[in-house]
């Protein structure tokens, strides 16, 4: 089920891609901030932020459990919004971002992977959520008492 599936099969490829991106974005931002922060503070801070979001998404997808996957879904959404907003801004006013970030021009400097990755991440997480909800073996008829228990057991009502 979702507990074991997230780290196998296509999920493992996704984790590998995310891990590389997390590493690349964070390392690049670290070097930029340490060596020439004054040149483009906004762009470099944004790169650092993007790096952190990628790390959160990587860990969230790699870990098991619903909470981790929810965190990962939020991280993927932030990435998607980030790449769309920053991508659009960098086209409209290039002066705001004198140096490239991962998200500039919709991630064209990174083969548009930043644009595709969050979409794949969200699709994968949705797939996992569906797997988790679906019963493993072909529908077993449940006893009637079990299906109606939550409603019938309300106290104080007749």
């Amino acid at each position, binding site marked *: 089920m979702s507990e074991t599936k997230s780290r196998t*099969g296509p999920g*493992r490829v996704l984790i*590998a*891609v995310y891990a590389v991106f997390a590493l690349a974005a964070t390392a690049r931002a670290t*070097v930029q901030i340490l*060596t020439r922060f004054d040149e483009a503070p906004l762009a470099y801070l944004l790169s650092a932020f993007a790096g952190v979001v990628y790390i959160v998404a990587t860990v969230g997808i790699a870990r098991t459990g619903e909470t981790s996957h929810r965190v990962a879904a939020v991280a993927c959404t932030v990435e998607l919004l980030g790449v769309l907003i920053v991508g659009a801004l960098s086209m409209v006013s290039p002066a705001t971002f004198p140096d490239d970030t991962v998200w500039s021009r919709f991630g064209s400097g990174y*083969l548009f992977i930043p644009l595709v990755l969050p979409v794949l991440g969200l699709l994968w997480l949705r797939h996992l959520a569906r797997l988790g909800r679906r019963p493993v073996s072909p529908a077993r008829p449940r006893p009637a008492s079990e299906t109606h228990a939550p409603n019938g057991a309300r106290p104080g009502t007749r």
Partner: protein
Amino acid sequence: MVDGVTATIQIASLILAVWCLVSTFRDQPMVVPHLVGVAVLWLLTIGQAVVATVQMAGGERPAETATFISYLATIVLIPPACAVWGFWERSRWGPAVIAFACLILPVMTVRLEQLWDPALV
């Protein structure tokens, strides 16, 4: 940095990527020949790193030394990392990870080359 080595890494890496993609589509897990390919690629990247280190020790310095070294280190780490990934994932997705790694590697060597000699950009 020796140009010939960079080109060899790029071609070898792309060939391995295509091969692994074929394996993925044919639903095969990682097998020993894949590992041999990864090992060859690893030796090439190690060779590149050794040459670059010797040249740097000899006084040649790329424009952004810190970035250059981190790229170089990452390139050397990629082949063993994807091999480990292939061992974990005993299905078609093992070669898929190796294919992805082998597509990143040429891109990173291009970047490395640009850092070493900005005139190439």
